[in-house]
């Protein structure tokens, strides 16, 4: 019997018991659909995390102000102000001579005014190295320069979204914006940065709506803590300003983040430990900062992905195993039910091999069809998840091929025994069977 006839026979056998065939397939369908949907979700999350981590750069170490509370807060407040300070950046620079760049960041929130309408924005005080460290490119004009920092120039650079919000499609270069009471000249606009939609790494900010100013200016003119009481009288204000302008107190000013860029991703971990021991000493052991190593996050996320894959493979194997047992069960019942048919086929010339092949093909048709439906359901499910839950899902061809292949394999493995049973039916007995 040629293979096409055999497949046709198998198909018509399945079609004559539609409900039973469908129920038999269900195990495989759900198994395959679950695998594909889960792999798609995992893959989507992984790619998003990778994109975020790449965005941070893998050759950098982020030192970030940490929120402390309780007992630790009391201890931390003995040092005033607590958290990262501008002087920490200097100390890191002094110790880590191998570092390519040490870039301090001070994020403050201020109202920005173009014309009359005020708008709250995030103002980032930083140095010239920030553009290189954050892999941002200038679209128009220039970024902050060392000169701007040294001279405390009244200039600012707009992120792409900030520029759009403030100026629309107009050219902002040379225009003046009023930020937190100061008039600043716009000298540059950044290229838009792709940020992705994930909240997986909320550590990342949407850089596009930032406005960059020289860090020196942000240290003086802007306060990080809105809750910190500002002096209300003019003399007190002058006194505060004078105090802050002195170099010593400027060093004590809190900053939000220090980005240290090194030569390669392998240098990040040792650099981080150097920074940690340095800061632990100067902060007297109080961990009011955290160190984030994107290269390590990348490794962790790959590790997590591996575990996820193993768990999923286990779940998939179990559901396919259950599906396979269901198929075997039905096939064994079918062999008994069709004993007479087997006898007739043997009598008119079917060899044992013909019978084995017929029953194997029927099992294969069930599992492959189930696999196909499962693939469709899985892909559809992944799409539905990304539409309704706004998760990023990536359907990988590999997952489809592997799960379809495995469902075929299930057909072979669990179809074999019933097929052999069918072939070993004695034709004489089978013809007498009713």
């Amino acid at each position: 019997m040629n293979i096409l006839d055999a497949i046709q026979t198998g198909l018509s056998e399945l079609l004559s018991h539609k409900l039973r065939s469908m129920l038999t397939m269900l195990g495989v369908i759900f198994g395959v659909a679950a695998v594909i949907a889960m792999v798609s979700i995992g893959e989507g999350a992984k790619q998003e995390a990778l994109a975020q981590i790449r965005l941070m750069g893998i050759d950098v170490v982020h030192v970030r102000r940490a929120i402390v509370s309780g007992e630790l807060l009391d201890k931390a407040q003995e040092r005033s102000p607590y958290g990262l300070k501008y002087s920490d950046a200097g100390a890191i620079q002094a110790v880590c001579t191998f570092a390519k760049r040490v870039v301090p960041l001070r994020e403050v929130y201020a109202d920005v005014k173009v014309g009359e309408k005020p708008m709250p924005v995030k103002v980032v005080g930083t140095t010239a190295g920030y553009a290189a460290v954050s892999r941002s490119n200038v679209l128009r004009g220039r970024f902050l320069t060392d000169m701007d920092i040294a001279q405390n120039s009244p200039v600012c650079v707009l992120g792409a979204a900030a520029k759009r919000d403030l100026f629309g499609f107009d050219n902002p270069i040379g225009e003046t914006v009023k930020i937190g009471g100061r008039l600043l000249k716009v000298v540059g606009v950044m290229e838009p940065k792709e940020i992705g939609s994930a909240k997986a790494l909320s550590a990342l900010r949407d850089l596009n709506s930032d406005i960059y100013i020289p860090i020196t200016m942000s240290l003086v003119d802007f306060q990080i803590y809105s809750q910190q009481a500002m002096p209300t009288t003019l003399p007190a204000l002058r006194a505060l300003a004078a105090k802050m302008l002195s170099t010593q107190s400027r060093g004590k000013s809190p900053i939000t983040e220090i980005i240290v860029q090194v030569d390669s991703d392998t240098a990040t971990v040792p650099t981080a430990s150097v920074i940690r021991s340095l800061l632990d000493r100067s902060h007297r052991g109080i961990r009011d900062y955290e160190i984030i190593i994107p290269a390590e996050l990348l490794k962790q996320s790959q590790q997590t992905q591996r575990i996820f894959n193993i768990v999923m493979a286990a779940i998939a194997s179990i559901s396919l195993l259950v599906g396979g047992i269901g198929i075997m069960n039905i096939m064994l019942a079918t062999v008994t039910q069709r004993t007479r048919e087997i006898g007739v086929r043997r009598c008119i010339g079917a060899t044992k091999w013909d019978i084995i092949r017929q029953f194997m093909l029927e099992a294969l048709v069930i599992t492959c069809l189930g696999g196909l439906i499962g693939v469709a359901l899985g892909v559809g499910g992944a799409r539905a998840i990304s539409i309704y839950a706004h998760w990023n899902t990536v359907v990988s061809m590999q997952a489809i091929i592997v799960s379809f292949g495995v469902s075929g394999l299930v057909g072979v493995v669990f179809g074999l025994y019933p097929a052999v049973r069918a072939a070993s039916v004695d034709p004489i007995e089978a013809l007498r069977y009713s």
Partner: protein
Amino acid sequence: MSLILVRDLKKSYKIGSMEVPALNGVSFIIEEGEFVAIMGPSGSGKSTLMNLLGCLDRPTSGTYVLDSEDASKMNDSARAAIRNRKIGFVFQSFNLLPRMSALKNTLLPMMYANRRKDTAMAKDALNRVGLGKRINHTPMQLSGGEQQRVAIARALVNDPPLIFGDEPTGNLDTATGTEIMSIFQKLNDAGKTVIIVTHEPEIAQHAKRILRFRDGLLESDELVENRLTAVPKPRE
């Protein structure tokens, strides 16, 4: 060369530790073109002989040569092949596959013959048994006589030299049985060798030669006198 040569054929079955003989050594020759009826009461060994002649089983000892091939020592797949090419089976209970149309049932032996399905040949076989117009009916939609005609067409389709009927009229009324016998006679006239197993003397009377068995032995071997020639009533 004779079509069938049986020499000292023996078959016994093991039941527990007991060896139960079913066929105690029979010998006969059937020439090509003969029409033989095999008769005998139950327990006579005729079913056993039937299975052996049909290459469904192997003898314990003795020789069975079918169309110059020694079938007594063949393995399973060789016997499947010889069943497919040399023998057409017709059973008492028709044994058609219930979900297939008459045409597909008729095509079945061709599919196991490893050759191209030849629908024209299958239709021709159905025409020869007078069922040319009902080829797309399933067995459920056909009468007993019609089902048996399909079975005969299926037996014919690979053009075997030997047609085997195991009580082919056992499930049919007398008139229909006569019709079926007329088809067998027609096939025999066209050169096929026909062997039928029956316990109805009247049916056996349609053959040219009767072999009678009793207690696993050949009791008598005689030519039929006053042979009945079945002339079916014209159908309306």
